[in-house]
């Protein structure tokens, strides 16, 4: 019968399905019609508001929430792919124990009661409260508050927050920079600066891939659109300063191919020219002239390879505009002179008096309630290294890991694998078995974000104080449990001070109580008479924000009194043996690798290479010619520390002395779509010098050499390499 089916080309036109109605229908559901739930996207730290289309209890589409002040109804590719986080075929469906021992990848389901039992007895038998460690990554603010409260009441050290995405966007470094220049506004610290791109006439971006993965790409993308075609009286100008032409630079009017490490010098050079030639209409520059006292423009031109003429032209463009802004980006954080460079870039805004002015630099206004006073600030890399040392020294008995994958995200020389192995009890809260979960004893999967509760203070902010709310849009698919609830259950079992510090029966009670602290704030988009009413409106709207825009004007109280300086950047590997600068960059699809288990993101073409499903090495055409390699030739990239092999993409938009490799592939675990494809360029990162070791993650400070292998590997690209006009690139 099958044969006849094939011959006639018929397929069954009626599927054999059953119609299963609700047992208890939710009030708001109309079968066949969608109900939209407001929540928050958790695919990156930005915290965009989403509306999820749910039909008969299944999430079918995610859209941006038009009312949300950060993204205003728009959403990026990763946000759109969120459905596949929920319906991923490789999700863990229960709490599991790695029954075959660590590394065996054999997991047996266990009851949650058993898991909590084991955890609470482990906590109760701790030698000292300091012997607990919590390593967190991309975590909701509400969970961070619960976990911090838990650890504090226990007497344990606070959680260490590190994930590769925030490292690549330089969030810790940007927060430090803001603190240095603008001081601490309150005990909790200064939030990240806001760059008013939408109203800027000139934007100088120093390594900020603001249209891809840096900070809030959706809000920045929206701002970019307005800057281009939405301003009365003209079209904005974007100049991108970086060694590799990123997708953001592709949208720029000019790309300055900066010699890696000299970005700060260029900023100083521009400032020097502005002061020397008294450019701009902001009055005298005498107040800030001292910052540029030691800058010689010709020296800057020599060191950076950007001519004096070009520097002059750019300085004039920046100063002539009424609204211009200079943005220090994430790429700078991977360099040895990162913080000095960021200072030099921010100084341009101070020099041109752009603080608190349209098209310039702002600080977000705090949300007027204690639980939301500031958003999570990530740990410095030094704090991460400290934790690893403690683990290695056997000072930790229980390690809890949530929202990050350190086995994948940290270079091997940090010793993270050995460190984790020393801990007697390792718990992972991951939804899928990733590289880190493979070293865990128990995996207690958290709900995915579409099934869970929470809130996220939007940071860097929108144009007004905002807290983005998160609620389940579907019932949890499997027997997973919210990590917040696990911590609360644990606290109750441990008793004593810990139970007192966390008295809530579940995390929803915690969220209701916190949200109610905004009750009575007249500036919000809604108010209510009772906390229950407020909570209801909170969920309907998807959070809370003010009716009107409200931003703070930064005061540069931390302006240095002496001259600015940018030391030369140090790169691992000598220039003879390793002639190329390695630029690992966060992939637009996979970001730091967390998107690799989603098929939509794997198949999504990279905007600049149109390639997908794999890792590649981008070489300047002249470099490729001199190495005698071409597209799809496999090359070996060798650093002083490691090596990898990947096919070549001949890439016109990169310096001849640099090569770039996207981050995100090279997973050993993490599900069928992620594992066994491509390579992880973090394997190439060399440790920094002895004295600097541990204080920063030098992801942009390694040099490599390229070797031919003679093999070929066809990359899946959308563009055809045989098309007309390709001859130029060969």
């Amino acid at each position, binding site marked *: 019968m099958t044969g006849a089916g094939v011959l006639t*080309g018929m*397929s069954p036109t009626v599927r054999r399905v059953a119609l299963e109605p609700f047992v208890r229908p939710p009030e708001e559901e109309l079968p066949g019609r969608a109900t939209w739930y407001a929540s928050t996207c958790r695919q990156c730290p930005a915290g965009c508001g989403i509306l999820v289309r749910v*039909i008969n209890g299944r*999430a*079918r*589409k995610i*859209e*941006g929430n038009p009312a949300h002040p950060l*993204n205003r109804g*728009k*959403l*990026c*590719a*990763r946000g*759109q*792919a969120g*459905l*596949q986080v929920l*319906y991923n*075929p490789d999700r863990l469906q229960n709490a599991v124990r790695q029954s075959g021992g660590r590394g065996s990848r054999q997991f047996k389901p266990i009851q949650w009661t058993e898991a909590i039992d084991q955890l609470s007895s482990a906590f109760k038998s701790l030698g000292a409260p300091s012997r607990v460690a919590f390593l967190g990554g991309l975590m909701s603010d509400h969970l961070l508050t619960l976990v911090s409260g838990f650890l504090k009441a226990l007497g344990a050290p606070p959680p260490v927050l590190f994930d590769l995405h925030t490292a690549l966007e330089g969030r810790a470094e940007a927060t430090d920079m803001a603190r240095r220049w603008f001081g601490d506004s309150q005990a909790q610290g200064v939030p990240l600066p806001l760059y008013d791109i939408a109203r800027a006439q000139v934007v100088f971006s120093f390594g900020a891939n603001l249209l891809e993965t840096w900070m809030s*790409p*959706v809000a920045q*993308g*929206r701002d*970019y*659109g307005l800057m*281009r075609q939405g301003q*009365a*009286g*003209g*079209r904005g100008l974007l100049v991108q300063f970086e060694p590799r*032409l990123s*997708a*953001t630079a592709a949208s720029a009017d000019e*790309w300055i*191919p900066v010699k890696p490490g000299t970005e700060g010098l260029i900023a100083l050079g521009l400032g020097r020219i502005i002061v020397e030639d008294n450019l701009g209409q902001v009055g005298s520059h005498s107040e800030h002239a001292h910052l540029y006292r030691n800058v010689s423009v010709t020296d800057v031109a020599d060191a950076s390879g950007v001519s004096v003429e070009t520097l002059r032209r750019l300085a004039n463009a920046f100063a002539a505009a009424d609204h211009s802004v200079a943005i220090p980006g994430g790429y700078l954080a991977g360099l040895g002179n990162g913080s000095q460079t960021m200072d030099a870039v921010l100084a341009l805004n101070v020099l041109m008096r752009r603080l608190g002015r349209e098209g310039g630099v702002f600080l977000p206004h705090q949300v007027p309630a204690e639980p939301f006073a500031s958003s999570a600030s990530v740990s410095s890399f030094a704090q991460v290294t400290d934790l690893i040392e403690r683990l290695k020294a056997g000072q930790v008995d229980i390690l809890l890991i949530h929202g990050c994958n350190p086995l994948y995200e940290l270079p091997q020389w940090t010793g993270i694998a050995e460190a984790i192995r020393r801990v007697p009890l390792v718990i992972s809260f991951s939804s899928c078995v990733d590289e880190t979960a493979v070293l865990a004893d128990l995996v207690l999967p958290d709900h995915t974000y579409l099934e869970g509760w929470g809130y996220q203070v939007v940071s860097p902010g929108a144009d007004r104080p905002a807290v983005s709310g998160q609620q389940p849009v579907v019932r949890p698919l499997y027997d997973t449990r919210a990590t917040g609830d696990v911590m609360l259950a644990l606290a109750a079992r441990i008793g004593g001070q810990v139970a007192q510090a966390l008295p809530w029966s579940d995390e929803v009670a915690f969220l209701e109580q916190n949200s109610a602290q905004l009750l009575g704030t007249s500036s919000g988009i809604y108010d209510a008479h009772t906390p229950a009413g407020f909570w209801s409106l909170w969920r309907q709207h998807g959070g809370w924000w003010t009716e009107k825009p409200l931003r703070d004007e930064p005061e540069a109280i931390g302006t240095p009194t002496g001259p600015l300086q940018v030391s030369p950047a140090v790169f691992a590997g000598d220039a003879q043996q390793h002639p190329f600068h390695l630029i690992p960059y966060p992939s*637009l*699809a996979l970001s730091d690798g967390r998107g690799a288990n989603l*098929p*939509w*993101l*794997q*198949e*999504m*073409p990279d*905007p*600049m290479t149109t390639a*997908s*499903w*794999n890792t590649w090495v981008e070489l*300047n055409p002249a470099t490729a010619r001199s190495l005698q390699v071409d597209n799809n030739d496999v090359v070996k990239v060798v650093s002083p520390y490691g090596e990898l092999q990947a096919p070549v993409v001949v890439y*016109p*938009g990169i*310096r001849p002395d640099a090569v770039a490799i996207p981050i995100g592939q090279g997973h050993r675990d993490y599900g*069928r779509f992620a594992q066994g*494809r491509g390579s992880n360029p973090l394997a190439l990162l060399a440790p920094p010098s002895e004295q600097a070791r541990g204080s920063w993650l030098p992801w942009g400070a390694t040099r490599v050499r390229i070797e031919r292998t003679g093999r070929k590997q*066809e990359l*899946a690209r*959308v563009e*055809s390499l045989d098309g007309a006009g390709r001859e130029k690139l060969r």
Partner: protein
Amino acid sequence: MAQDVKSSVEAAPRWAMIVDLDRCTGCQACVVACHAENNIPVVNEQQAAYGRWMHWIIVDRYWEGEYPNVKARFTPVMCQQCAQAPCEPVCPVFATYHNREGLNAQVYNRCIGTRFCGNACPYKVRAYNWFEPEFPSPLTEQLNPDVTVRSRGIMEKCTFCIQRIRRAELDAKAQGRQLADGEVQPACVQTCPPSALVFGDLNDPNSQVSQLARSHRSFRLLDELGTDPAVIYLKGGETNVPG
């Protein structure tokens, strides 16, 4: 009755899309949103390397110049819904035709997979299901019930999210009113962060697409072929505001 006015042929809308190349940042949000909305299968690496990916919208990236004076440009391309579509006359079973609303219709259940249409299309925006699409459970739950799930042997392409157009028309009719400008938004238009994509009715002279179509920056792809596309591009690098 007021409700019937819209169903007469003369009052049919003429759907069109504006693509503002000065706003497009190449972020691929449209590509993924389209996958999510239209149940587009993922073909995996090997088939994608053969060029058998199924994207209904792609963002072409063009390089201009040579290092160091090199620029890159993005051009999102989807089915141009040509009024004089070369793909329509070549279909032996009339599975593709032009409808009254200016859309190039693809009727999946008529298609027998000769692929003449894909061959004829100068924009190469048609995607063919060489294999049975796979959605490993529970990814089947992500499927949009408003869009047919195609099987092997069927050609597919951008439909301007006809399901959204129909849904909006149905709702408007049920409420006894006309569709407002901007009420219908295909998935790509809705998600685009810089608002580079705009969708609407060219028959309404006051709609946003009509206004933007009159811009001095406007042009159409491969206009010289006489396909009369319904997608109008706005040149990048220049301001829309004259003077």
